[in-house]
């Protein structure tokens, strides 16, 4: 009898605290519910790709938010299988290689890709100088067959979107394709498609020109 009375006294005395605790518990429960598997997995990516998947130049990490779900899944599988990012000169790829291993299953890859495509894509800062967009437009005529006139890519042709992507990243990847750092693994079928296309760009200036034009497509 005594114990039940003291419990009742305790509850009445601490009732504001009890109510507050209950509210906090309910709120945290709803937050946990919203915290999807993809969001949880993406926390490992934020340190390099940023919380909104906008990419961080200092970490050599590209923007992901403008890419299609299919392309992200394909690339994650390539990194996980050592098909991409295993060349000794691919400094950024070698960073991504072990982190892709943290995605244990196809479901995890799907979840994180779904989370990334849900992020809004926006224009990123340009950092390259000396590119001529007018010359680049002429060079882009070849690229648009796969990447589209608006640069938004075409999943049916395995071509990623190029808009709202960092220019320094595009230059690095074009150089990687051209030098064989990327696209030379026999299992990298789509990389092998891009590699001969990169050869069309004669030198670094041509790459900068076409990138300058691509940047004008970003919004």
């Amino acid at each position, binding site marked *: 009898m005594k114990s039940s009375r003291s419990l009742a006294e305790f509850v009445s005395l601490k009732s504001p605290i009890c109510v507050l605790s209950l509210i906090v518990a309910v709120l945290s429960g709803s937050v946990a519910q919203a915290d999807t598997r993809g969001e949880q997995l993406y926390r490992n990516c934020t340190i390099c790709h940023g919380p909104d998947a906008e990419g961080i130049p200092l970490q050599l990490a590209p923007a992901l938010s403008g890419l299609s779900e299919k392309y992200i899944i394909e690339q994650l599988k390539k990194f996980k299988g050592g098909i991409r990012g295993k060349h000794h000169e691919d400094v950024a790829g070698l960073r991504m290689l*072990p982190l892709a291993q943290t995605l244990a299953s196809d479901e995890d890859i799907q979840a994180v890709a779904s989370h990334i495509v849900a992020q809004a894509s926006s224009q990123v800062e340009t950092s390259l100088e000396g590119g001529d967009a007018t010359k680049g437009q002429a060079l882009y005529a070849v690229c648009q067959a796969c990447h589209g006139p608006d640069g938004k890519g075409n999943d049916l042709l395995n071509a990623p979107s190029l808009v709202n992507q960092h220019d320094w990243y595009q230059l690095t990847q074009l150089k990687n394709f051209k030098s064989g750092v990327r696209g030379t693994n026999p299992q990298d079928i789509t990389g092998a498609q891009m590699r001969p296309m990169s050869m069309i760009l004669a030198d670094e200036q041509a790459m900068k020109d076409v990138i300058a034009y691509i940047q004008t497509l970003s919004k």
Partner: protein
Amino acid sequence: MFDFLDRFMPGILEWQLPRASEYALQIDVLFDIITILVGFWFVLVLGFFFYLIFRYRHRPGQKAQYITGETHKQKQAIEIPHLLILACDVMIIVPTFLVWYNVKIDIPPADEEVRIVSQQWAWTFHHAGPNGMLGDDDDIISVNELHLKKDRQYTYHLESRDVMHSFSVPVFRLKQDAIPGRVISGHFKPIMAGEWDIQCAEMCGIAHGIMAARVFIETEEEHNAWLAANTPAGAASEFIATNELKISEEKEDRNNG
């Protein structure tokens, strides 16, 4: 000396990991010496401490005494253990310096060389190709795979592309920091064939914990087969052509001579 001492040591580390490099035995013996001496004092001091707690426990009518340690006998209680611990320190320091010298300072003439480049979060290994020279076109470069010949003396050259890493091969008992801007050379001699772990041992970023690689210690035949399978195509044909030219020149010299 270490081979002799090893006969009397328990080999605590070897229970957990085999010794795959020549100097692993020295590290293990040193580890055993330190563990035994420190363990001895740990048990002795704790035992004595608990004995005193029990022996001089609270009793009715017994007052605590404040001992200032001024008599000769009281001083001896400190001085004798102090001298004994100093003697143990010497027994640890002498083999420590010897092992340090053998492992880190005295680099023996190399049979083979390997370049190791660390970066966030991968290891790149540059192996000398069929011509045995490091730093030319026939080098075999692999990511996260180090291939070594058993019973050959290696000198390694360790670099970092970005931040500090540490090249740790537990079966070699080797751990060496990689520092950006520096090339740090060291040595090892693999003595046990097999496939073992390499792990970064310096916190280097988010994927430090999975910055792992494998070391493959192979017999001469296995290593040559690996070399043949992985030598860059152009470099291999160039090497064969050069050697064939040398052989034909030697034959010609012999015939002319």
